[in-house]
Structures are given as C-alpha cells and as structure tokens.
C-alpha cells in the first residue's frame, strides 16, 4: 500500500466493558499521522485493550474509531490497514523468516511480495537470515522480524504492544534507538504501548498516561515530567517528592507563597492550579540541591541513606515530620554528605509544581517500582 494517504487516528468516546469490569472508560484521543505516540501505564490500566480495539481484535462497547475520515469501527481485523507487533512476537513457527514477512503482502495479492519482504528485512538488518525459521533466531532478532512483518505492509497505523518487554536491558536500549530510526525512515504512525516510563519518554513525541481505564494526562515527555497534573503522573513518570502545603495570600512577583510544615516556601504562580488552597508541593529529586545554592526554598533534615550510582549519588533526607525526601546530585565535584549528617536542601521557585491535595500522595509510586 505504498503511497497510501493516511490520516490521523481518532478515537471518539471509545470504551470497553468486560461483564462487570470496565477496562476502558469512554476515551477521546487523536493521534496525528506520522507521529510516535505512547500509551503509558501500569498493567491493567486499559492500554493494551485500547490497542486491541484499534487493531480490530477487540470490539469496543461504545464509541467510534476513525482513520482520517474513514470510520473503521465496524470492520474486522483483516479488513483494517493497521498492523500490530505483538508482545510475544507471534511469528509463524512453520514458515521461514521471509515467508513470515511477506505473509501480509501475499494476502493482498502483491506481485512484488518477496522483493519487498527482503527489502524490509534489510531495513531491520536481517537480510542474511531470510531462509531461517523464527525459532532459530535470538529474541532481539525475532523482535525485528515481527517489526519487519508489520511495517512491510505500510499500514496507516502501526501498533506496538510492549514490543521490547522480553528483551534484556542492553538490547532494549539498542532497540529503542533502532525503532525510533525506523519510524522516522518510514514515516508511519506508531502507537507504542508500554509500562516502562523511561522507554516511553525516550521514544515518543506524545505520551498518554493511562490509569484505571482513563487517560490521566496527555502531552510531550518534557511537559509531563516537569508539569504533572496528578500525583499518579508525578510518581509514575520518574520520582517526586511531595510536601503537604497550604497556599497563603501572599503574592510576590510571579510566585505564590505556601506554608509546608511551618516553612515558608515559594512556587511559580503558573505551576499552581487555580482556586486550590490545599496542595501537594512537588519537586523532582534532581532539582534539589544539598546546601543553599539551589534557591530560596530551604528545608533541613538528616541524611539517612546514601547510594552511589556512578553518574549521580542519591540521598534520602528525613524531614523533622518524618517523611523522607529523595535528593539526586550529579557527581560533578559538588559537595557530598554522609549518612547521619544534618543538611540543608534548597530549590528554586520554578522547579516546584503544585497538585490538588485531595489526591493520594503515593498514587502510581509503588507501581513504578514493580517494573524496575
């Protein structure tokens, strides 16, 4: 289907109900043509169900799916110009690698199926194993065959279901870069489902963070990281230190003054949601400095744990009210601290963000730890 004009993928109020369980609440999402889009969330958040509905492998309970102006909701999987790279790869074990790759083209009666399949294998650098069986290849190679088998059809939308989940860390990093390269080379719309926040941030232009069948927040990786709008996003994407605080009347030049455990702290006005008085004040661990050099916000506590990770050192600092803050310092020669020492930590007003205090401070936190 070379030269096929593909449009944006639009999900309009799409939902999925399994008997009493709602896997996906009515969801509106637009994925621009040619973008690398990630659906990120813990297992059971509805991201894979959403993906399977786009593929046509799961029938939505409600809502419409459109590609460009074409409504594909009622079409079957084999009628859609959408291809999937499955988590288990799902390569046909009784066919050679090249027959696997040309399978889709042959179903469409493409005369040049074999030549195109070989080209696709070249693209993923597997031209020399075309005649082998999938079982004779390593996990990483199988993953690339699965990718070639999908992209060779030039689908309107390519779906990737945790495609790197089965690979070891080093290979995964390599494949992340490879996937990104291939996506920009072929210019297809990629939708990538993953529970790995680092993977999503590395690869995607836009991330939708999903939790319990709903999209919590949608945006580019930097915005999601710097300005999370919920405690779930703050904890699921990287780590966050959350301090319970109350907004004061005091209005400075562009900053709002807040009180947390008796300390006066400030945060940029546009980082505070309008009309909220009780907040969680969030700061990322790497924005905190040991000492006074970070900015006007200062707290002091006792170092309880120091872990050296090579590039950086991570400190746990216990506040007088019991909560431990995480501080990450680059190992760039700046001051160090030892366990037991009492230290001051500081940060600037623009590095803080505020979230409505009605939410659970630990939402999304332990989930992220589960997956390392």
């Amino acid at each position: 289907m070379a030269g096929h004009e593909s449009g944006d993928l639009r999900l309009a109020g799409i939902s999925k109900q399994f008997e009493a369980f709602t896997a996906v609440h009515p969801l509106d999402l637009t994925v621009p043509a040619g973008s690398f889009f990630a659906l990120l969330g813990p297992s059971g958040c509805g991201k894979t169900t959403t993906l399977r509905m786009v593929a046509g492998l799961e029938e939505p309970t409600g809502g419409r799916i459109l590609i460009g102006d074409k409504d594909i909701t009622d079409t079957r999987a084999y009628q859609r110009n959408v291809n999937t790279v499955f988590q288990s790869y799902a390569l046909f074990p009784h066919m050679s690698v090249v027959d696997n790759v040309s399978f889709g083209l042959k179903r469409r009666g493409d005369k040049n199926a074999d030549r195109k399949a070989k080209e696709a294998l070249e693209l993923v650098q597997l031209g020399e194993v075309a005649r082998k069986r999938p079982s004779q290849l390593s996990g990483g190679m199988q993953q690339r065959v699965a990718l070639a088998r999908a992209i060779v059809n030039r689908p309107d939308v390519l779906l990737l279901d945790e495609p790197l989940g089965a690979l070891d860390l080093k290979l995964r990093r390599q494949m992340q870069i490879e996937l990104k390269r291939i996506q920009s080379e072929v210019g297809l719309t990629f939708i990538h489902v993953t529970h790995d926040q680092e993977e999503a941030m590395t690869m995607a232009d836009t991330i939708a963070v999903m939790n319990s069948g709903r999209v919590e927040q949608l945006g580019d990786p930097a915005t999601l990281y710097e300005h999370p709008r919920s405690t779930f996003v703050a904890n699921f994407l990287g780590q966050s230190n959350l301090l319970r605080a109350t907004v004061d009347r005091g209005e400075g030049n562009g900053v709002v003054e807040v009180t947390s455990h008796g300390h006066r702290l400030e945060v940029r006005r546009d980082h505070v949601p309008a009309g909220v008085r009780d907040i969680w004040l969030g700061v990322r661990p790497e924005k905190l400095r040991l000492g006074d050099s970070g900015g006007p916000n200062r707290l002091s506590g006792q170092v309880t744990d120091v872990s050296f990770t090579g590039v950086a050192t991570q400190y746990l600092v216990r506040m007088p009210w019991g909560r431990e803050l995480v501080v990450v310092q680059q190992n760039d020669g700046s001051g160090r601290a030892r366990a037991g020492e009492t230290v001051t930590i500081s940060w600037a007003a623009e590095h803080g963000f505020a979230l409505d205090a009605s939410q659970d401070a630990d939402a999304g936190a332990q989930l992220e730890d589960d997956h390392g």
Partner: protein
Amino acid sequence: MRWIRKHLLAFAALAVLVYMLVPNVVVALFSFNKPSGRYNYEWTKFSTDAWQHPCGTPGICDSLGLSLKIGITASVVATILGTMVAFALGRHRFRGRASTNLLIFMPMATPEVVMGSSLLTLFVMMGVPSGSGAILIAHIMFCLSFVVVAVKARVAALDPRLEEAAADLGATPVQTFLRVTLPLTAPGIAAGALLAFSLSFDDYIITNFNASPSSITFPMYVWGASTRGTPVQINVIGTIMFLVALVVVIGGQLLGSRRQRAAA
C-alpha cells in the same frame, strides 16, 4: 566395571529394543518356513513359497481387504469428526462442554468386551444388521476418542496470538485456518489418523461381537485360522504390515530432520 557403569543406559535401551523386536523377527523368520503339518510353530525348512503366493490360502486376502477398507474409512471419518470436536472443545466455551469431554473419554476407559457386547445389544434393538456396516460404526466411535485426544493437545498448545497475527496481517478467517491453524495442528491430526487406523485394523473383540459370516476381518481370520492350523501367509502379511509401519515411521522422522536441516 567403570565402562559398564558408564554405558548402563545404553545396555538397558538395547535390551528393551531386543525385547520389543524379537516377536517381529520371529514372525518374519517363520514366513520363510515350510511347515510339515498344519501349524507353523516349528522350523522345518527354508522356503519362499508363501512370499510368492501371499493370497494362497482361501479367504486371507478377502479378510485383509475388508480390514483395510474398514480401517481407512473409519480413520478418515474419525479424523474429520474428531478434529472438529477437538477444535470445538479447545476453542469454545459452550453448554455441555464438560460432559462432552467426559463422553469422549468413555470409550477409552470402557473394557472392550463390555463395549462390544453393549453395542451388539444396541444394534439388535435398533435393527442394525451385523456385518461390516455395524463394524464401521463401532470403529468410528472408538477411534474418535483417540483422534480428539491427539488433536486437542495440539490445539491447546497453539498460541491464539498466531491466529490474531494472521488476521491482523489481512488473512480472512478461511485463509487463517488453511495457512496457520491447519499446518500447525497437522502433526496432531496425522498422529490421530495413524492411531485410528492401527486401532481399527487391529481390533478383534468389538469387531467379533458385531460381525456376520460375510464380514471376516483380518484379525478374525487369523484367530479363526489358528484353531484349524496357521498358514504361513499370515506371517507374510504380518511382516509386510510391520515393514509398512516401519517405513512410515522412519519416513516421518527423516522428513522432520530434513526440514530442520533445510532451515538451518
């Protein structure tokens, strides 16, 4: 001593092989015998008479032909029905699935004598005449269970994602079945068919209950003959059957290993 201990497993394997092959070797050997009396139980003299006239005893080739006909028909019908049953049981959740599973297993667990006699009662009650028709129905019935068991194991091991992947790549349900599902379950179907054929060809008890004087199968012929004398032709046909089975098994093995080599 060390050497013996090291190769103990090989000795054990060899002993088992000899134990299993000796009867076949004896059968083959005595097919070249020229017995002095009516019984082919003592070695008398080397001869190829029986090999030159395998149908030389009246009725033997008729019974062989009937057994082959019933065996092939029963295994083809049982394989088609059994494969469909196996897919239904393996893929779908429906009312009566558990009881179907149990019923399928019943013929395997029931003693043959019981099954043969009750089938005869049933056929008499229903007015089905004894003979090759009744035998065929009975054989299809018990072969079905074995086909279902063989194919169901294969269907259960089949990753449903493979069929989803085929549909995802644009294969219609029929294409998916012919190009993905069927080739991947084929070894189970073939095993079921071969098993069905050999069970049907071999069966004596159930067949005997439902046979008529005009439907003498090969096992019945051999049993009947042994009371009056054992023609050497029985050994000839027995040896041929053994060789055919050997060729099928070795051929299957070679095909499998050549495929693996070709893929390497």
